[in-house]
């Protein structure tokens, strides 16, 4: 503690250089916070689905539909408690580039199957009663400033035309990874509006016993193997994870960028500390003459380096946390995106490590400095 003043004085010896170094570390750890949160959010999304629900989709891919008649056959399988279905709508509100998810769902069976989507009983009733009614996520309501009872018009891209909806219910997810920017409406409304030209995009099966999910999925796919629309059945969690993998190897990309940024900043910080120690060779020699031990000087230089990177890291991570607090643009693509405390803790650890590594060489140089040669240089 008695050397704190010395460390602080050395840090502010060249204020501009220290400030620039802190800023570069700040930017790096802002990026770290965001990139790391992309990975944790993707991990969260891939685990969001239930193991107690199966998804049956077309074996040829998610862009292919299934006949509605499959619903009855699926419901007949032993172990299937209920069946629901949904389809992708793909419209937009005012700006075609402003994306959010819209699903046409079999209203009565779908909401009953998803307790994770929390809606008041009155609003559920109101939604079920009205064919043009919609259930909207609280985040989407906030984003567009919509209110309950408001009529909103979505422009269809797959199903052309203007589609009017009345917002009758607002949902809040019990897990942020579910996302709160989805828009659900009646499958029947889409069916009628498209003159019966649609079919379910996928079926959702509520199971009696999650432990039998794998065998049931195999039985279902085997039963439809020789039909006009063969199926692919998997647990909802596996299905969600499949969507995450559709992002490609984002995790690898993000980690690669993060590592590159980390090493770039490591070099910046190391260079700063090298310069800082080099310009005070004489002072280090004087301190040694006064009786400062090598390890004390090693510690003083390291403390300075770690303090700089910790300040920069804390600023960057705090900025990242507050920049993506609550509703933010990342939520659209990464439901529940937020810079969590785990990421902040990991970031601070990485910042300390960065300071340790970048300061190690100059600290070692300071500790190993020959007093006689250094004094001769400054004399």
């Amino acid at each position, binding site marked *: 503690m*008695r*050397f704190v*003043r*010395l460390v602080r*004085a*050395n840090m*502010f*010896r060249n204020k501009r250089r220290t400030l620039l170094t802190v800023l570069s570390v700040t930017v790096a750890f802002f990026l770290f916070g965001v990139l790391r949160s992309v990975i944790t959010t993707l991990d969260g999304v891939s685990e969001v689905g239930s193991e107690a629900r199966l998804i049956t989709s077309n074996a040829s891919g998610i862009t292919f539909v299934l006949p509605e008649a499959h619903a009855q056959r699926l419901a007949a399988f032993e172990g299937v408690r209920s069946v629901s279905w949904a389809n992708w709508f793909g419209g937009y509100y005012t700006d075609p580039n402003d994306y959010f998810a819209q699903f046409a769902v079999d209203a009565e069976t779908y909401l009953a199957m998803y307790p994770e989507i929390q809606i008041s009983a009155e609003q559920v009733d109101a939604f079920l009663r009205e064919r043009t009614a919609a259930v909207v996520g609280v985040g989407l309501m906030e984003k567009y400033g919509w209110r309950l009872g408001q009529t909103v018009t979505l422009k269809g891209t797959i199903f052309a035309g203007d589609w009017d909806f009345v917002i009758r219910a607002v949902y809040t997810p019990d897990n942020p990874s579910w996302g709160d920017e989805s828009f659900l409406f009646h499958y029947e409304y889409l069916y009628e509006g498209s003159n019966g030209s649609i079919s379910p995009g996928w079926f959702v099966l509520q199971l009696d016993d999650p432990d039998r999910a794998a065998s049931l999925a195999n039985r279902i796919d085997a039963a439809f193997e020789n039909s006009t629309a063969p199926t692919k059945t998997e647990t909802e969690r596996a299905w969600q994870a499949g969507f995450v993998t559709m992002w490609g190897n984002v995790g690898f990309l993000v980690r690669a960028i993060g590592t590159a940024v980390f090493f770039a900043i490591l070099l910046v910080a190391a260079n700063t500390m090298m310069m800082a120690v080099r310009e005070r060779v*004489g*002072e280090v020699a*004087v*301190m*040694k*003459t*006064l*009786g*400062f*031990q*090598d390890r*004390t000087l090693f510690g003083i230089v390291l403390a300075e380096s770690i303090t700089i990177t910790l300040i920069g890291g804390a600023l960057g991570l705090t900025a990242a946390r507050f920049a993506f607090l609550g509703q933010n643009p990342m939520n659209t693509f990464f439901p529940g995106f937020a810079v969590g405390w785990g990421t902040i803790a990991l970031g601070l650890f990485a910042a300390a490590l960065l300071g340790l590594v970048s300061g190690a060489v100059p600290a070692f140089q300071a500790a190993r400095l020959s*007093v*006689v040669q250094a*004094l001769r240089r*400054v*004399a």
Partner: protein
Amino acid sequence: MSSHPSDATTSVSGTTESASKATAKVLVQIRELAKAYQRDSQRIEVFNDVNLDIRTGEFLALMGPSGSGKSTLLNMLAGLDRPDAGSVVVDGLEITTMSNRRLASWRSTHIGFVFQFYNLLPVLTAYQNIELPLLLTNLSKRQRREHVTTALALVGLSDRAEHYPRQLSGGQQQRVGIARAVVSDPAIILADEPTGDLDAQSADEILTLLQRLNAEYHKTILVVTHDAHAAERAHEIMHLDKGVLHR
């Protein structure tokens, strides 16, 4: 040829002061000290077989041409440099065989070093510069403050405590340097050209201060200098030339 140990302890004759010093205990005992440097393929001998006794309370000046090894001898006395052969015993402790770690610790309590160019840390105030050696002790903050205040008063800079080196004149900076050297109350003060960067008046003030530290506080002082006037302030002047110490 070096001076013989017995010659080295011979005091200036005819004074009561020197008579009393002759009876004082030997604080520093240097025996058969040798040092050479290797420059490329050439071996340069700095000195060989230097012997010297310094008694407690002596104020000695060491003169000699540039490159004669004055500073090297001073560095060895401070435990900053190691000889090729010979021994340096300070207050009964052989310092040439000590580890670097022990030497650093020993230096912080036994040696006060005054530099030609003051060598104050520019980011610290006069007070903080003087406090530096005390950070290595177990003294409390309050005790450190007492020591630093006393040292500042001793060098007449109580009103400059919060000034940074750049806000002080050369003479004032050197006084801070001296305060830093004495703040931990070492037995020996080693000064390497302490007036070399100062004008005549400031140099005179510094030498007076060193004399005072010797007379009033019984500090044993060894000053390396080129300046004959500065050397005259010492009780005795030694010469190091061509590797031979004359006393």
